[in-house]
């Protein structure tokens, strides 16, 4: 990795089944992530992905770019917009891309962008990885 380098974007498909799987694995059973009725009652357009699932996908992209399962030293995001997941087999897609902001002392700092239907779903998203 070198400063200014644009890393190859990764696209992740997210379906309702993925939300159920993530709920069970993480222990986050908030019904807005699986129950349409509850999601609409709190003013959402429908069931949305767990913010932590979106962040986990960003973490996956970063880990894969860095090339080691424990390369991530620092990962921080702001959740700026929900990721609605329609009740069909196609679900939705989250795209994660990054630019290398700096490289020094065996560490690279990445500025991340995550989008869903072209809109940013994470803000202030950055990672520091061991390189």
């Amino acid at each position, binding site marked *: 990795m070198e400063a200014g380098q644009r890393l190859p974007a990764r696209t*992740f498909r997210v379906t309702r089944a*993925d939300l159920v*799987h*993530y709920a*069970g*694995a*993480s*222990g*986050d059973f908030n019904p807005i992530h699986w129950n349409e009725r509850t999601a609409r009652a*709190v003013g959402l357009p429908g069931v949305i992905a767990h*913010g*932590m*699932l979106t*962040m*986990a*996908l960003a*973490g*996956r992209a*970063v*880990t894969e770019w860095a090339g080691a*399962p*424990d390369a*991530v*030293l*620092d*990962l*921080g*995001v*702001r*959740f700026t917009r929900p990721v609605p997941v329609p009740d069909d087999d196609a679900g939705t897609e989250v795209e994660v891309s990054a630019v290398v902001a700096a490289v020094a002392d065996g560490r690279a700092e990445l500025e991340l962008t995550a989008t869903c239907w072209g809109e940013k779903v994470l803000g*202030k998203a950055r990672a520091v990885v061991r390189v």
Partner: protein
Amino acid sequence: MPLNRGYVGRQLPPTPPYLVGREKVREFASAIGADDPAYHDPEQARARGYPDVVAPPTFAIVPASAASRQLRDDPELGLDYSRVVHGDQRFVYTRPVVAGDELVCAVTVEEITERAGHEFLTTRVEVTTPAGEPVVTVWNKLVVRGEGG
């Protein structure tokens, strides 16, 4: 009801150790589609120098949010969870989490602020071994939406 400002700076007692299970790490990795064998296969993980399967970078949310439940369930803080939205999240690792780790979580309320009718609650969870060796620090900022919005 506004958040109780008296909680700023408050440290909760450290939790009993959370034992990181190999199957839990595999389950979490599968749920996020992370297929690196180091997350799934202890032999491969050991061959690459880890004591057991490695947890993906956001796995620490599992013990950290379990520890933070103490705040959520504390009526004195006044956190109305039905109005809560996840604001910010950050993990800073000293070393990776691996299966077999025992993790103790110490929660501190760092900050409570207010802007545009919404309140913001920032907590820090220091995740350590029972001997106090640092593993990962987890920051979380929750947004409590105001009555009007």
